């Protein structure tokens, strides 16, 4: 044996399991590009945006120019990158903030994806290039005040009037709602659940932003009101009927969240690691105390395990072998992990941990939304329970 069986003392605390080596040169370059974009354009101002409760809409076009919007879709001005590349971009974006990652998830996976997957050729040509460029902002209206985990209970309805459709109802908790130029809205109808492309300047359409949020403050969350919104027949997404339409979009977005959560966790872990090295108490760095070391170790395990899980499911998606239940496992475990890491990091930072000077409490609060949206923790547990037993325990 010429090689040392085990090398000693040469691990990188920031890439403990050398997960970098699992990436191709191209994936690494793409990751590094998004990393610099986040460092240059998001991190310097994010605390202020969060505190003021604003989403930096001016970033949309810059994200579009980079190729971030609908990046995993092909044609129509989209980048056509792999699923893993999309995931890596989400990691970096959410290292910045869950709000900026949410913007990209909604635009690409919830608004552009249904048009790409279920739209007519005319719809794809009309909407996708301008959405990929960030010139047109999209949102996705599925949830209603009384239909959250059970979207089948939605009451928004579409009725035929000659060749037109008329939509009535109210959607709730809609990311980008107040800044959107176009909404993909899901409704009941005589023909089952349908999806529509609704320009937000259509008469009868209005939105109200939800104020006083304590989470995802650098992201717009709104109510959408559809009051006799009349649309031409060409606004209907022709390629899908039934809840499987919106659920397919959610699978796409959850895939990105499964990666993104690792980014938020990494940001918290790194803040804690730096703090533990620099902060002195009882005459020594707090990182020299066993209790703090244990917290750092648990965080490092969580972040590394989460990244491996996401990478594995990402490779499955690129090879065409992924099932929605796999993505549920990734979303469930990685968001839970990220929330644990954020809370632990919050504690390691002591009082500093509650200020926006450090990223930790911002991520911690954001992750509460991430835990709930795109299928709550419980709903993903039930999806996995059903996948394991073949028995649905939803109702």
């Amino acid at each position, binding site marked *: 044996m010429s090689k040392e069986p085990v090398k000693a003392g040469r691990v990188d605390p920031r890439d403990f399991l050398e997960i970098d080596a699992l990436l191709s*040169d191209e994936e690494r370059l*793409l990751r590094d590009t998004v990393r610099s974009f986040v460092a240059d354009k998001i991190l310097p101002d994010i605390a202020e945006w969060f505190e003021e409760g604003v989403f930096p809409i001016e970033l949309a076009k810059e994200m579009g120019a980079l190729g971030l919007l609908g990046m995993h879709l092909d044609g129509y001005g989209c980048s056509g*990158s792999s699923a893993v590349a999309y995931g890596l971009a989400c990691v970096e974006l959410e290292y910045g903030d869950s709000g900026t990652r949410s913007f990209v998830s909604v635009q690409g996976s919830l608004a552009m994806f249904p048009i790409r997957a279920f739209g007519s050729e005319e719809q794809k040509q009309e909407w996708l290039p301008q959405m990929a460029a960030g010139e047109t902002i999209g949102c996705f209206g599925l949830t209603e005040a009384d239909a959250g985990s059970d979207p089948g209970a939605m009451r928004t309805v579409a009725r035929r009037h000659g060749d037109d459709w008329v939509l009535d109802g109210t959607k709730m908790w809609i990311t980008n709602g107040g800044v959107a130029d176009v909404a993909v809205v899901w409704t009941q109808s005589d023909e089952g659940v349908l999806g529509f492309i609704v320009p937000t300047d259509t008469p009868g359409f209005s939105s109200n932003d939800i104020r006083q949020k304590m989470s995802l403050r650098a992201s717009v969350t709104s109510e959408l009101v559809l009051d006799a919104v009349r649309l031409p027949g060409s606004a209907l997404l022709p390629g899908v009927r039934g809840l499987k339409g919106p659920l397919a979009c959610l699978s796409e977005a959850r895939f990105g969240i499964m990666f993104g959560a690792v980014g938020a966790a990494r940001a918290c872990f790194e803040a804690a690691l730096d703090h533990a090295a620099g902060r002195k108490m009882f005459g020594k760095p707090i990182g020299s105390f066993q209790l703090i070391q244990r917290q750092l170790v648990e965080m490092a395990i969580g972040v590394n395990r989460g990244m491996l899980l996401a990478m594995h499911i990402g490779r499955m998606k690129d090879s065409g072998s992924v099932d929605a239940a796999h993505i549920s496992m990734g979303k469930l475990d990685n968001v839970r992990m990220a929330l644990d890491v954020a809370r632990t990091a919050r504690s390691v930072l002591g009082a500093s941990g509650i200020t926006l000077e450090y990223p930790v409490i911002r991520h911690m609060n954001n992750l509460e939304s991430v835990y709930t949206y795109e299928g709550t923790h419980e709903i993903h547990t039930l999806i996995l329970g059903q996948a394991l037993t073949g028995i649905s325990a939803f109702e």
Partner: protein
Amino acid sequence: MKIAVCVKQIPDPATPYELDSENHFVVRPDDQVLDDTDRYGVEMGLQLAEATDGEVVLVSMSPANNLQGIRQALAMGADKAIVIDDEALRGSGALVTARVLAAAIEREGADLVIAGTESTDGYVGVVPQMLAELLGMPAMTFARKAELTDGTIRIERQTSGGYDVVEAPLPALVTATSGSVEPRYPTFKGIMGAKQKPIEQPSCAELGVESVGSAGSGQEIVEVRPAPERTAGVKIQDEGDAHTEIIKLLEQAKVI
């Protein structure tokens, strides 16, 4: 318009450097990145090429086992790259580098050559001037801005007190200062397209460059010493007149 941009791959500045105990050069690890300051030259080249419907060719003397840095510059939009990696080049100093780059540029033919002001691993800062001399081109150094009109290059040359406006007919060599332009991010399409772009790898023999390596360098690094430890700064207690003290110190340092 063909624009050659000289770029260097260097060890990742985030990891500590090691020096070769014999020749005192920085040991080149497997993983190398594009020298950050070269992004300005690439950006300047791309902007000038866009304005003139021209072409950007990257030229680099660089171990070719990892071309990540070159690919990054290609992903930004350069059209092709020429990378010279030859076992014979080990231990080459600035003059050999300049001779190799000059041979590659001469073979390719370029109307304009752009380089950084100095690399951020060796910090020698003489290669561009040597290169200009070897190519018989005017050396337009420290450009904070560059414009092309009708076969003439006009730059704003950064000086300690401001800038000079300098003009020369093409062909010419320009060095771009950091901060002269805002380097673009590679786009995802650019990143994915970069692997289709040609990277030529001629040997020294093919370029007709002889006596390279430490022997051909005409220089020897005799000794390397660590920089002296920084001494503690001066603390000024503000009793209402701290600003005058600070101004005095800045004047002494000749920065104002």
